[in-house]
């Protein structure tokens, strides 16, 4: 177990480092990098505009830049955000709890709703229920998250973190529902479940002991992906719901090509995606002797 954990965490760290390098390369090579909006401001003198252009014209190669950045990170310096003029560490520390709370609450609600709906679908097994549940999930998949956010604000009279959590829940729910229902439906047709049902086992016990338990590792595998989905949903939702979280920060950083901020946010998301993936793997039962992992 310990070996597995160490092995998994090592690969996560390597993945995070490579992810940061790819992110840095993409941002640096994307159009608009190094461009300063102040160049369009006619108040500035020619000399000032020349100064604004200089840093982007004297760019160092990406690998030394990234290595230098990693060295600073190891000494606790995450860099200064050129768009916010503040240390990146400070910005992330300020915004992270907000996103953690809204995304965490959203994920919890979305998973709860999704799993309950999937279990109900397996237990009820009526076409009408499937149609309604499927229709609701389809509707939620089709609605832009920005519209969902506005509905929460307009109809629900919610703002900020509660609205963001609600929207994230509704974004995560249909994905969890669809996938969980597929897994649970397949497991519920297994011979041992049919046998248990034939022997008169109560539906609740049947579901919990014989359907949910074997399906849990496969369902848990969705956790890593849903963390990424929740974070991706948090970006427009936090901007719309006026929730000062990482999503709002990431959006502003993307618009302004704020490289230090974007690299750090990418690393953070990679760490979370990696850890939740590893957690999902740890939850999986160990392979039988003679069988490959």
């Amino acid at each position, binding site marked *: 177990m310990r070996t597995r954990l160490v092995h998994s965490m090592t690969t996560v760290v390597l993945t995070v480092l490579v992810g940061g390098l790819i992110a840095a390369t993409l941002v640096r090579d994307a*159009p608009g990098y190094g461009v300063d*909006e102040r160049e369009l401001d*006619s108040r500035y003198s020619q000399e*000032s505009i020349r*100064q604004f252009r200089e840093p982007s014209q004297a760019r160092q190669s990406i690998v030394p830049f990234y290595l230098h950045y990693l060295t600073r990170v190891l000494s606790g310096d995450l860099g200064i955000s050129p768009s916010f003029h503040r240390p990146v560490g400070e*910005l992330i520390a300020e915004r992270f709890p907000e996103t953690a709370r809204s995304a965490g609450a959203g994920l919890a609600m979305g998973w709860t709703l999704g799993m309950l709906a999937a279990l109900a679908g397996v237990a009820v097994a009526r076409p009408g229920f499937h149609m309604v549940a499927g229709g609701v999930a389809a509707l939620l998949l089709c609605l832009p998250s920005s519209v969902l956010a506005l509905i929460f604000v307009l109809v629900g009279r919610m703002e900020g973190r509660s609205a963001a959590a609600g929207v994230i829940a509704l974004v995560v729910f249909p994905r969890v529902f669809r996938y969980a229902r597929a897994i649970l439906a397949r497991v519920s047709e297994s011979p041992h479940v049919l046998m248990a049902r034939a022997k008169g086992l109560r539906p609740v016990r049947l579901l919990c002991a014989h359907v949910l338990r074997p399906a849990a590792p496969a369902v848990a595998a969705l956790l890593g992906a849903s963390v990424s989905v929740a974070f991706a949903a948090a970006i427009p939702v936090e901007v719309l719901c006026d929730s000062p979280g990482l999503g709002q920060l990431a959006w*502003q950083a993307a*618009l*302004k090509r704020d490289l230090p901020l974007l690299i750090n946010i990418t690393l953070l998301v990679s760490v979370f995606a990696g850890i939740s993936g590893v957690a999902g793997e740890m939850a999986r039962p160990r392979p039988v002797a003679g069988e490959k992992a």
Partner: protein
Amino acid sequence: MTARHVPGCVVAIPGGLDGGRALASCAAGQWPAVVTALLFSACCCWSASRPAEPVAGGELRFCLRAEPRTFDPLMAAEEPDEIVSFLTGGVLIRMNRLTQAFEPELAESWRLSDAGRKIEFKLREGVRFSDGAAFTASDVLYTLRTVLDPARHSPVGDPFRNGSGAVTVSERTDGRIVVAFSAPAAGVERLFDQLVITSARSLEKLARPAEMPVLGPYRIAEYRAGSYILLVRNPHYWKKDAAGQRLPYIDSIRLSIQQNRELELIRFLRGQIDLINGMDAESFDRLAAKQPAAARDAGRSLEGEQLWFNQVARSPIPECRKEWFRSRDFRRAISQAINRADLARVVYRGRAAPAIGPVSPANLFWSNAQLPAPVFDPKAALARLVAAGFALSGGTLRDRGGHAVEFSLITNSGNQSRDRVASMIQQDLARIGIRLNIVTLDFGSLIERITRNFNYESCLLGLVNVDLDPSAQMNVWLSSAANHPWNPGQPAPQTAWEAEIDSLMRAQAVEPSQVRRKALFDRVQAIVLDQAPVLYLVDKDSLSAVSGSLGNMSPAVLHPQTFWNVERLYFRDPKGTQH
């Protein structure tokens, strides 16, 4: 053109219907009741016609559309920074946004001398910072020397140095401050409207904005990143009203950071915010349908939309297209083919007007009223193109070389109105056989194309003039300037008309006579209209939303439209605004 103005105060005059009923009952012999009712009505009318006395108190709430990047007033470049700076900063001279005249603030008076080379300020006495420290000449000297430091690249300081030569600042023995320019600086007062006077103590506390001492009506009390900024009244603010009451009337201002305009409007409709400074036409119409009294159209603003063609010789676009864009007849024809009235009516719902030239009529003094209005005439446009060597065949316009006239128009993404303008222009040009491809880009990519690699063909962007004086536009009109839209950074003017514009702009920048300056700048506007390097499409109206509970509200066309007189705004019922 005078701005259309909707009265800011809605005064309910009671008695009309009651008075009528009272008269009817007279016939039944109840004339004492009639007299009483009439007297009562008269009293009410008299008291209603007297303006309500401003009452202190309350919290003003409105939104910033982005996070402020800095609280340093000398580096405020973007709208949120400028708003905070305006609300907390004291300046030597302030332009009255309604009359567009300059008024004394921290400077009791000022004097221009030496043919416009010097400006001298007599400072107001007894003024204190919000921390109680006295305001002195050394603060003005410190501010000016800091902002004039070229290494600082201050958007407030750079305009001081846009002319040639150094700017010196000194204090006379009588305490007056003298700012001296090496060459005459026309329209120099306008520079001081943006220059917030600060102190070294204040700038040391940028990381803790709540501790920054300021000279304006408010100071920062709280700042929660991504969420809000709370301003509270400056207890030592120097200004008083006519009755001797210390200003500002309103106790505090809460600025929420709200990027989404839809949510901003929803919050206003719910009464969660008190004003919206600058609205788009669609939101304005929705507001007007629900709360007509709150919707304020102050008339034409200094904001507009413009389109220009890439005339940079070294740009990587096809040579045939460069030739088209360099042709005055081509540009004039495109201008004639665009239906500006439709743009104003459909996209801006009538809350805009076809633009005539580079200066909106909202700029009362500098706009050239003699310029002819652009005429929408696709037939004339086509005739002009044919005369220039183009030919229409099979519904497609072709040049002399047989190339189909097709080009792209870049604009920034995420702006619905601009997308619609581009769409309508696309349809207009299709009528004369020109195919226009609309390309929306994120702002960073767009700036890179129009300022660095010049890999674009035509560009549609908004135009915002925050400064009325043409000297503020030197970096746009001079052919050598970096912000010269169609062909920036020319070592020497490539056309005779650009050379003429250069000469006229340099002349007006040092001309002491306003009348002569106006004549010179009128000529610049006439050349621009004739040569059409930039097509001016519409001038937008200044639209805002204002709660009926606010008094002394007079939305202007200049920024900040609704709270330019923030120290004199008041709530009719301050207790109702406590949260």
